[in-house]
Every structure is written in C-alpha cells, then in structure tokens.
C-alpha cells in the first residue's frame, strides 16, 4: 500500500518537473486530505483551511520539482510545508483563536519554532504508531486526531476517564521519543 503511494508520488513529481498539472492532481489525490485535515485541526475554520490547502499545493507546483529525496520522504517534506503554511496563517489570527486551545498565544508557541523547519520522519511515526497496543491507538485517534475530549472518549469506550488519560499518556510518551530524537536534517 505504502509502496504504491510512494510510486504514485514519484510519478506525480516527475509530471511536475514536466510542468504537467496532472502531476499536481495525482499529489492532491494522495495528500489533499492530509494537508486540509492538518490545516483544519489547527485553524478550526473551513475557509481558512481551504486557503492554506490551496497555498500549499500552489507552492508544491512551484517547488515540488526541487524535492530532494536525501532530505526525507516526499510525504514528510510536504508535511513540513503544510505545517509552515498552517502556522503562518495562524499568526495572522487573534490570540484567542489560536489552535482552539484556551490561553494559547504566539509567545507560548515561539516565533522561531525550530520544529517547523525539522523534517519529521512520518514513516517512522507511522510504524511506531502501529506498535502501540490497540487501546492506546484508539485513544490517540479519538483525542488527538479527531479532537474528542477525554470525557467523550471515556464515554464512547465505556471506561473511566482515568483509564483514558493513562492510555493517552503512555502513547504520547512512546511517540514523544520519535520527535525528541528527530535530527534537524535540513530546512526548506
């Protein structure tokens, strides 16, 4: 499955290098959901998320041909571009709307957040995610990916809130190792 995705991505990039818009459509079909989901999860606004998605793929149209496989997988590279675009747009919003997190603001996030320039190895994150026990994966997906609260997740799973928090903490600690160990392998 992943090999097929990688093969199609390579085909898309080759088409971009020939200035063929069909290549961009291939990449959009592969990663449009991912870019939009990331933007929406942080901006909490369909219109802004759509604008960011457009900007990311327009940038891809311009910069995609220069993608360098030695800096990481294409998916990881695109993730970095999408994060940059999302957080750049976030900085144009009032502090109260930041990330949907009460009390979050630019000072806390850090203006020159180096993590935005770090290419996170998504393949490694994905493989590590698969090694987590099923109940931890479930909690992670409900809370982090789908944005449910601890209480909603506990109610859905029929377990105490303390159990949900415990599973979440164990899963996050395991995955945190990945991000902590990431090396700054280059910037865009």
């Amino acid at each position: 499955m992943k090999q097929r995705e990688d093969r199609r991505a390579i085909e898309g990039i080759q088409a971009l290098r020939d200035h063929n818009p069909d290549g961009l459509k291939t990449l959009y079909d592969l990663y449009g959901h991912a870019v939009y989901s990331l933007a929406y999860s942080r901006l909490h606004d369909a219109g802004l998320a759509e604008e960011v998605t457009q900007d990311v793929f327009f940038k891809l149209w311009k910069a995609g041909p220069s993608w360098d496989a030695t800096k990481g997988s294409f998916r990881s590279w695109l993730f970095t571009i999408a994060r940059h675009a999302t957080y750049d747009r976030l900085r144009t919003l009032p502090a109260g709307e930041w990330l949907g997190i009460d009390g979050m603001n630019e000072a806390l996030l850090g203006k020159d957040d180096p993590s935005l320039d770090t290419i996170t190895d998504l393949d490694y994150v994905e493989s590590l995610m698969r090694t987590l026990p099923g109940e931890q994966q479930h909690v992670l997906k409900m809370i982090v990916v789908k944005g449910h609260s601890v209480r909603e997740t506990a109610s859905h799973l029929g377990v105490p809130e303390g159990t949900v928090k415990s599973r979440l903490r164990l899963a996050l600690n395991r995955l945190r190792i990945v991000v902590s160990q990431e090396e700054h392998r280059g910037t865009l």
Partner: protein
Amino acid sequence: MEHCELTRWLSGDLTAMEKTEYQQHLALCPSCQNALTERLTMDDALVFLEAPIKPPRSTWKAIKNRVDPRRPRNRRVSYAFAALSLGVMVGAWSLHHKAPPAPPVFATNQLEARLTSSNPAIHGTAVLNLTTHHLTVRIQGLATLPAGHLYELWTVKGNQEEALGALNLKKTHQASFSGLAHAGSGYELVICPTQSGWAARTTLGPVAAKGAFTAN
C-alpha cells in the same frame, strides 16, 4: 512542573487557577516550551497521517485554476480569433461589393438563471457572460451555517457536475460568487452546504437553491 501538566492543559483538564499558573510557568520554562512544540509536532503528524477530513470539492478546482488557467485563456483566444476572422471576412466582402458596411449587430452574449428554493425567502440571480465565461451569482435568504460549514456552488448537466467554489455569505444572509464557469444553455446551477466539521467527513448537503440557464 511536570510535562504531564501540558497534557492536562491541552485536554482542558486544568482548573482556571491551575491553567494560569501553568501558562505563567510555560512562558519562562524552555524545557516546557520544548515539550509543547514536540507535542504540537506529534499531534500534527498524527492528524496528517490519519487525514480524517476531506476538503471541499471546490478546493481542487481553485488550485487547478491557479496553476493551469489555460482553458479560459485558450477560449478567449479562440473567441478573439473567431471575431477577428469574421471581421476580416466581412471587410473583404464589403470591399468586393463596394457596399457600405452593415451596422454592427450585438448578439446576446449572456445567459441568466433565476435561483429559487422551496423556501421562498431564498432567491437570487446568476449571470453568465458567454464571451468571458465570467459568472456572477447573487442570492439572499441563505441561512447562516455553523462554524466550519460553507455553501458551495456547482454546475450540473446530465451526469456531469463541477464545483465552482464557495459562496461568500454575509451576516445579512446575502451571498455572492464571482468567477469563471464553463457552462452554457442547459446547465443547472446548484447551491448546497457542505458539512465539513472537525472529526466529520465532508458530505454534500441538501440543495439550498438551484436554477437553470436560459437565453435572454
């Protein structure tokens, strides 16, 4: 202060007093700031990998128009070429017959559609310029949608449907669209809300209003 406070903060589990204390601490603690950026990176990576939300169908259309505006430009060129050719032919015919040129005839070059709904409060008009393919839509009475939802404009002909983009809905319940549309007589315009909520997949909602193009 332990990093588990970060998880409790992001989960909304801190009391107001605890939250204030934690944020004051966070502003001064590089270690906790690192923990925050790590957590945001990880959350973003998981969302990117799982990709739970489908973008509105108008998104690709907008991207395509930005990177590949050849279709409208080619059509404009072909229309201009046709007009020029016609002018040359008419000129040649006029010279040959030594007759005064005929007065210019302005053909109807636009189509109109009345947009209606089962709700009589919703009504509007759409005007399509057949030369430039520019479409202008104005409609009023559309209900305000919850945050994260929007109205999309579509053209439909037979089994073919194409998203043109999102409508700009104002607080006065008036909405508008201005952009390119490759449509013509027999095409139907459809406005419908997309339900694009966090943790919910995008689905095409019920038709809010529609209308068909007819010649003037």
